């Protein structure tokens, strides 16, 4: 019996061994340790943020549970609505212009010509600057007697002169410009990398078939850029929802909330009014928006890949 049963016992052990390749402890360590670090420094604070959004907390006393009170208050808050609309405008303009402009610049600068390196470098330089420094520089440009107004005066457009950052109808766009100035170079570099990755043979084939430049772009370049596009979309959505430094250092969301974004409103409710529960609710809204947009896109992209 025993001699007969022995192989039947060892058999499952063997198959088990074969199916799941043994993980060396070191590998497990390499996986779990970063997970623990990530969990402690990222997931745990994020979960706490969700918890805080359901409380009323001033940062000093113990948080008081209010359920979804912060969220109902949020949707009745006119400043939140202004911030939401401004964020939507920001997302469309900042995202749209930087994607279209970045692609245009990349197409212009992809061919190796004399001096093209200089232009690429020049366009990429703003990315290297800290946004706060960029903002300070543009603040000077926008001063009532700053460069922008003097230029307008010099070319005979004196009537167009504004206090750009103090006027509620121009401020959002005035702040958008430096943000774009920086983002364009960044998106351009991403697209340049994408364009470099396209096989030149495809263009040769298209040319042989008599495709025009526009047809080449539509049928070769654009489909080939799909993976780059999904990266750029994620980058743009995340960047525009977290745009904060440039607005905060130029206007602090003012005058009277006319350049308020969700991110600046979150900061001011948290650290100026010390309503940390309410600010956490805002943070949750920002998270849901960013996550929502990106997941929708990725799901669509995967479905297209599958079909």
């Amino acid at each position, binding site marked *: 019996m025993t001699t007969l049963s022995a192989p039947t016992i*060892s058999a499952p*052990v*063997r198959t088990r*061994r074969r199916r799941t390749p*043994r993980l060396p*402890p070191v590998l*497990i*360590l390499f996986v*779990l340790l970063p997970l*623990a670090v990530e*969990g*402690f420094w990222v997931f*745990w*604070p994020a979960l*706490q943020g969700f918890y*805080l959004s359901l*409380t*009323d*907390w*001033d*940062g*000093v*006393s*113990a*948080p008081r549970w209010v359920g979804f009170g912060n969220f109902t*208050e949020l949707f009745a808050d*006119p*400043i939140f609505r202004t911030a939401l609309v401004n964020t939507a405008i920001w997302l469309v303009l900042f995202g749209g212009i930087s994607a279209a402009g970045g692609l245009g610049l990349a197409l212009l600068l992809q061919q190796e010509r004399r001096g093209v390196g200089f232009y690429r470098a020049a366009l990429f330089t703003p990315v290297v600057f800290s946004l706060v420094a960029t903002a300070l520089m543009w*603040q000077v440009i926008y*001063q*009532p007697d700053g460069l922008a107004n003097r230029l307008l005066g010099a070319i005979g457009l004196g009537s167009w002169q504004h*206090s750009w*950052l*103090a*006027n*509620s109808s121009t401020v959002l766009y005035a702040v958008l410009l430096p943000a774009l100035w920086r983002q364009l170079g960044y998106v351009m570099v991403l697209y340049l990398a994408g364009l470099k990755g396209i096989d030149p043979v495809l263009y040769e084939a298209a040319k042989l078939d008599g495709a025009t430049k526009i047809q080449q772009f539509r049928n070769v370049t654009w489909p080939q850029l799909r993976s780059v596009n999904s990266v750029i979309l994620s980058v743009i959505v995340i960047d525009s929802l977290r745009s904060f430094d440039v607005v905060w250092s130029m206007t*602090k969301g*003012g*005058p*009277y*909330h006319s350049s308020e974004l969700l991110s600046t409103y979150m900061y*001011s409710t948290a*650290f*100026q*009014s*010390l*309503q940390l529960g*309410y600010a956490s609710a805002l943070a949750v809204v920002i998270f849901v928006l960013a996550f929502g947009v990106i997941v929708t896109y990725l799901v669509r992209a995967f479905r297209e890949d599958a079909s």
Partner: protein
Amino acid sequence: MDNAVLTQWGQAGLNRRRFLAGLGAVGGAALLSGCATSATSTGPVKQTSGAVTIQSNLSSPQAKVAIEALAKDFSSKGQATATVNTIASETFRTQLPSYLTADNPPDAYTWYPGSLLNGYAKKGLLLDVDEVWQGMSNYSSAFRTLSGDGAGHQIFVPTDYYWWGFFYRKSNFAKWGVAEPKTWSDFIALCKTLQGKGVAPIGVGAGGDTAWVASAWFDYLNIRINGAPYHRQLLAGQSRFDDPRVTKVFNQWNTVLPYFDPQSTALDFQDATTSLLQGRTGMMLIGTFFADAAPKDILPDLDFFQFPVLDPAVPLAEEGPADGYFASSRTAHRAEVMDWLKYVATAPAQELYIKNSSGTVLPTNPDAKDSGTPLVAKGRALLESAKELTQFFNRDSSDALQPTADSALVRFIQKPNELPSILSDWQAAAQKVWSS
């Protein structure tokens, strides 16, 4: 061989299990200790043993030199020493709760009395300084009341105070052939004259990061029209910003709005000071601290006049904000902190501070001498003639209410026609601050 493999697996499994258990323990500990909402956190400030750490928001160059001179003098006197940490004002304000709730907090802080401090006092975060006040019997009762927590204890030691008024350059007024106005109608006439000469009569400086200076206009008009008691009630949430009495304030303001510099909400007060000194604007309602931004040689050319009286029946009140120190109740150097607070309340210490700073503040100790310039003498007389003193919008209310005022007032200066919706929005925003 199979056996060997099995044991190896077993050991590996055991190891992994052990590892996971260890990880669980670490995670559990992290869960317990990592609660961000617990009221303790470690502060960024390291303490040197035996020294009083003073967290200071006096970051303008002259004031910084002055407080460091104080700390040096204090250290040279007695057993205790003091070190000063200078923090940018905005950072200081937003970090104050975390300083105070730290396990090892800085000992003493520069600040001003007001509802914010009372809030911290209620939470037991502030050191009771009754002992210091026992040696301050010569101080005026107004300062004593101001420094109380409302529950019978002193929590603050005021060291200096200053005044607000319409500042101008004597040489410019002489050049334009105008004189200080005595009444509101004189004031309007002065504005008209200046405007006729191509000068923007009233500079403000409510742009950039200093929208709060616009609150001086609201404060003054309110204490002139409705009186200081109503002003305090309003800021405490016992009245409403859409009340007819508040509308009256804005209607009065509207009559002088045409004389405001068109750049009122585009320039911060430092740039507005430059405009004033260069004669592009005629005058500016501002506190004496603006002199820190002016070149020293211009100081003798500066003068000011009182905000004109609007209703003689309303008891005269002026803005006279006081600055000073408070201390953390969690300090590890209670005796040394008390020594420091007693020291800054003395006349020689206050004179030393005034000597090293721009010298436009008044000492709170009645035995201390001010800088003795005619400007300061006039400022002292202004505050002494007042029946009541108010502090300033944020000091009489809270730092959380200040941004609501900034939005409302800047919008009013730009779009006075939207007054009804400005006031209802202000009330809604203020309501949220009061109820939180």
